[in-house]
């Protein structure tokens, strides 16, 4: 699964440790989620959705199918040169 967790976290200027504290998980788990090496359980995905006040399909997407689920709702901004 792909996700835009890093973008949402950056919008709030949170560190990975801050987000981990909000969600009650380890910083390692946040890092694994952001690098898309680990897909969260449904309860954790809902918790993330509630924290960022967004439906989970706007945060997590599988890159398949049509419509909004095929693309991220948020994209990573290009780094400033």
């Amino acid at each position, binding site marked *: 699964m792909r996700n835009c967790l890093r973008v949402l976290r950056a919008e709030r200027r949170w560190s990975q440790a801050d987000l981990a504290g909000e969600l009650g*998980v*380890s910083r*390692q*788990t946040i890092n*694994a989620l952001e690098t898309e*090496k*680990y897909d*969260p359980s449904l309860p*954790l995905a809902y918790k993330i959705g509630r924290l960022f006040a967004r439906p989970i399909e706007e945060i997590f997407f599988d890159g398949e199918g049509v419509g909004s689920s095929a693309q991220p709702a948020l994209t990573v901004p290009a780094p400033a040169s």
Partner: protein
Amino acid sequence: MEILSGRAYATRLAMWLVLYAGLLFGSLTLIDRNLVAWLPLRVALGLSPMIAGFGILFLVMGRYRSADELQQKIMAESLMFAFGATAIITFSYGFLQRTAGAPELSYFWVWPVMGSAWLLGSVIAQRRYE
């Protein structure tokens, strides 16, 4: 449920290991000097270090239950690796004893094999999610 931090876990583990060492030393001293003749008491004394063994078992289980979902996954994968690797190694050695005359070994060797495999499995599982 109480969430065990890494430091709290390490502290409690150290306490159980100190108790284990104390019970081991005490029981071996009493048994080796033949200070206890009654067999049931000798057996109980000989097994007394396993009181700490149970403490460590419940500590590790508590650590697993209080871990978050990714940490639980990593622990489960590393234990699965240790379980399988220990089965393969001990069975292989058993076959070598029958076919190649490998020497008898104490059952005490099972835990070092499993513990080492657990450690290796932890490293492999951790790297997968880094």
